[in-house]
């Protein structure tokens, strides 16, 4: 016997009216508009909870920690009412053989019908034994589960790109999920970030459950709904960039006025993520608002692109209409005078508008 999300909410004493309100809020948080609310309601009234195996490789658990900070929906409701989180070694009651038995049982009962959520990545050096699960390389557990799953979610920058343990010289040869040799060909959705924003993680899950499909992905495999714009494009400090007003040093006058952090190293202009729109921890803030430059943590190889405090020297003079497919993660690698040009164009515009007095 399985129960639907709607039934679960009803029996908690939530009225149908509140349930429908929840559905329209969910639609709004996904940027879908009110017409989608009935579709969400229908999905939640009719679907049993989908089994999820959440495996951990080499990682730091920041993705799980981010996930439990989700404000809407609450992590509690995702776990109790939306998915069936059958295996997640960070929170599961069972250990050892009783834990491993769950992987097999899920495969047996739901072959081809469960989601494989990957946090972290497998090391290929040391025969895979720098990450051991049940006496064997994690790589084996991953490949085994992948060959039976319906689809894979690569949580965070570890699973998506490799992240910190894959930074030069990558001593364990930590490898992102989509590049694991011999991994079964399954649809993979990347949700990068170190960690990803909590509400982005839960929105991706909610979207999949609601529409019974992956959200539209960009060429790099990221959901377009959250990763199609750069931090810079929607940054509340963007007007200061355009006006040539920069923080020159931490805690200077510009820092106190919330000027642009470009000159102290902000990677916002080359980073695709939703931090400046969705923001963090229930929409409370994001790194730039708190005064630190974006370090580009959702970008492939962001650890190996120079100091976080070095100024980007390669921003193209792109408009906000340029998308991830056109620029890709390569923007930061293509060296040019474009950043200066971008800043200069803004400065020229400013000078023009002020009659050349600056």
């Amino acid at each position: 016997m399985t129960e639907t999300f709607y039934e679960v909410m009803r029996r908690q004493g939530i009225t149908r009216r509140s349930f429908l309100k929840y559905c329209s809020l969910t639609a709004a948080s996904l940027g879908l508009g009110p017409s989608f609310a009935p579709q969400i309601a229908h999905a939640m009234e009719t679907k049993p909870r989908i089994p999820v195996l959440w495996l951990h490789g080499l990682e730091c658990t920041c993705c799980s920690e981010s996930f439990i900070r989700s404000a809407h929906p609450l992590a509690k409701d995702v776990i109790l009412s939306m998915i069936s989180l059958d295996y997640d070694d960070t929170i599961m009651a069972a250990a050892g053989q009783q834990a491993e038995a769950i992987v097999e049982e899920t495969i047996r009962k739901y072959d081809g019908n469960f989601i494989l959520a990957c946090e972290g990545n497998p090391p290929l050096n040391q025969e895979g034994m720098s990450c051991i699960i049940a006496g064997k390389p994690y790589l084996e557990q991953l490949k085994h589960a992948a060959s039976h799953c319906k689809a894979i979610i690569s949580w965070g920058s570890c699973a998506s790109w490799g992240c910190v343990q894959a930074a030069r010289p990558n001593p364990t040869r930590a490898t992102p999920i989509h590049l694991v040799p011999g991994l079964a060909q399954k649809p993979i959705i990347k949700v990068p970030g170190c960690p990803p924003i909590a509400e982005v993680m839960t929105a991706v899950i909610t979207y999949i459950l609601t529409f019974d499909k992956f959200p539209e992905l960009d060429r790099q495999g990221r959901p377009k709904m959250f990763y199609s714009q750069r931090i810079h494009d929607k940054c509340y400090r963007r007007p200061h960039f355009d006006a040539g007003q920069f923080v020159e040093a931490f805690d200077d006058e510009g820092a106190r006025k919330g000027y642009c952090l470009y000159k102290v190293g902000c990677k916002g202009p080359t980073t695709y993520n939703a931090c400046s729109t969705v923001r963090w921890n229930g929409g409370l803030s994001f790194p730039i608002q708190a005064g630190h430059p974006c370090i580009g943590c959702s970008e492939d190889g962001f650890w190996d692109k120079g100091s976080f405090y070095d100024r980007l020297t390669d921003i193209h003079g792109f408009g906000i209409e340029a998308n991830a497919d056109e620029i890709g993660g390569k923007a930061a690698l293509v060296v040019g005078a474009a950043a200066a040009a971008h800043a200069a164009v803004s400065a020229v515009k400013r000078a023009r508008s002020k009659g050349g007095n600056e």
Partner: protein
Amino acid sequence: MPAIKTPNGFNLDDSGKRVVVDPVTRIEGHMRCEVNVDANNFIRNAVSTGTMWRGLEVILKGRDPRDAWAFVQRICGVCTGTHALTSVRAVEDALKINIPENANSIRNIMQLSLQIHDHLVHFYHLHALDWVNPVNALKADPKATSILQMKTGPNHPKSSPGYFRDVQNRLKKFVESGQLGPFKNGYWTNPAYLLPPEADLMAVTHYLEALDFQKEIMTTRTIFGGKDTHPNWLVGGVPCAINMDGDLAAGAPINMERLNYVAGVIDRSVDFIENVYIPDIIAIGSFYKGWLYGGGLSGKSVLAYGDIPDRANDYSPKNLMMPSGAIINGNLKEVLPVDLRDPAQVQEFVPHSWYAYPDEKKGLHPWDGITEPNYKLGAKTKGTSTNIQQLDESAKYSWIKAPRWRGHAMEVGPLARYVVGYAQGHPEIKEQVDKTLSALGVPLEALFSTLGRTAARALEAQWAVHKQKYFFKKLVANIKAGDSSTANTEKFDPKTWPKEVKGVGFTEAPRGALAHWIRIKETKIDNYQCVVPTTWNGSPRDNEGNIGAFEASLMNTKVERAEEPVEILRTLHSFDPCLACSTHVMGPDGEEMAVVKVR
């Protein structure tokens, strides 16, 4: 192996049945544990193994020291930030940078948020299921649960019979659905669970409430650090500039609205910790106070570095609000001073770790450490190199090194801090401990146990919420006095740095004493070494045969059913193991990793 006595006083006997737990779950990272139980189901030998290694310090070589905090913060996302804080302190120590008072207050508020959050989440979401049986909660009478709630936590508003009935119904449907999620394959028929159904229902309800509330605790870090998990830090201070009433204050990192937000979070944290967490510890503890296994090293050898500097830039013990010092040989009358720069004090050994030293009889101080990974299994291992059935603990058996303080295996963590503080007569700690012991009606010796470790963590969370208030007031008073500065950037430009320097930074992470040692050469990291809490607690044996804190704590514990590791999990979880943290090392020359040969 014949039965042997370790130099630190434990009798090891591996003749009984071997029980393997891999993976140990509800921890950060990956860990394996093997024990031998005798004919009466008592544990007589324990083997703990770190089963992951990422090599972050290798990756740090040649990087900009100002970036190091971001790399090492990714050592662990559970104790997020404590490595970053330790790192900026190490760099500031090396470069002799003083930070402003406001930066010290903000860092302390952030670090205390972590203590509070980590302790709370650990208790309810990683540890509670070792004591609490959610299936048994279905049998509870909601009215009786309500009475229990009002008796144990009278100041918590969610206490009506209807409230508990709703939660019970939700739980019931969840269990009846057959999709048990995280509760699947738990040990719910094991007689080790002792709570009556009402206490189980109350605790499961608080499991859910705590899951909702925990996210709020960390929002102080979203305000000051821009995001959480993994907020942002800065060498020289904090990145969040203050602008209370000047031009454009609304877009500044810190203004009146932001401070008000933080104040509200701090107040609600006080309420939750004092009205839910502490009463639950007493309520649950009262049913388990006869189960006093798991003391291990806690009554013998404990270590704390101290943390939470009252005034900025003074890291001497008298200015640290969390206690520092070492106790050895169970002599609580003497707390010894700890010097992280002294090569004779902290040393790491590798005879039982998957690393090689030229002379494995000797330990090495972190500034002079060597790392050469050497994944090699002992001759008595059962299985193969990639399919281990049973480890051979007489040889190398863990990715964790064995750190020692003046040759002693030490326990670190909340209990270690509380034992050191209690021994020093720290008034706040003494009051809390005495009050708790008296509420449970147990003697001081009861502190040296699994339950004592779990209780100390809760008391520390309570201590921490009040210290957050203290530092918030201090921050506001300092701003009021006209000081808005948050960063010292005089030496931010690497061109101002000496050619070669070294430094050490330390904190008390939620799991215990943490230190980073750094060498900087020509503005780049030449060597970076972390010795972290779980390296201390999870340490394998050393050259003398001393066992570490995890292994010691499991010794002589009675298990109800050997095939169900409830008691093993209970005691291991009481340390809040963090395996991603524990396995990091890099040599003094930062030499490239050797290729690992598997034999």
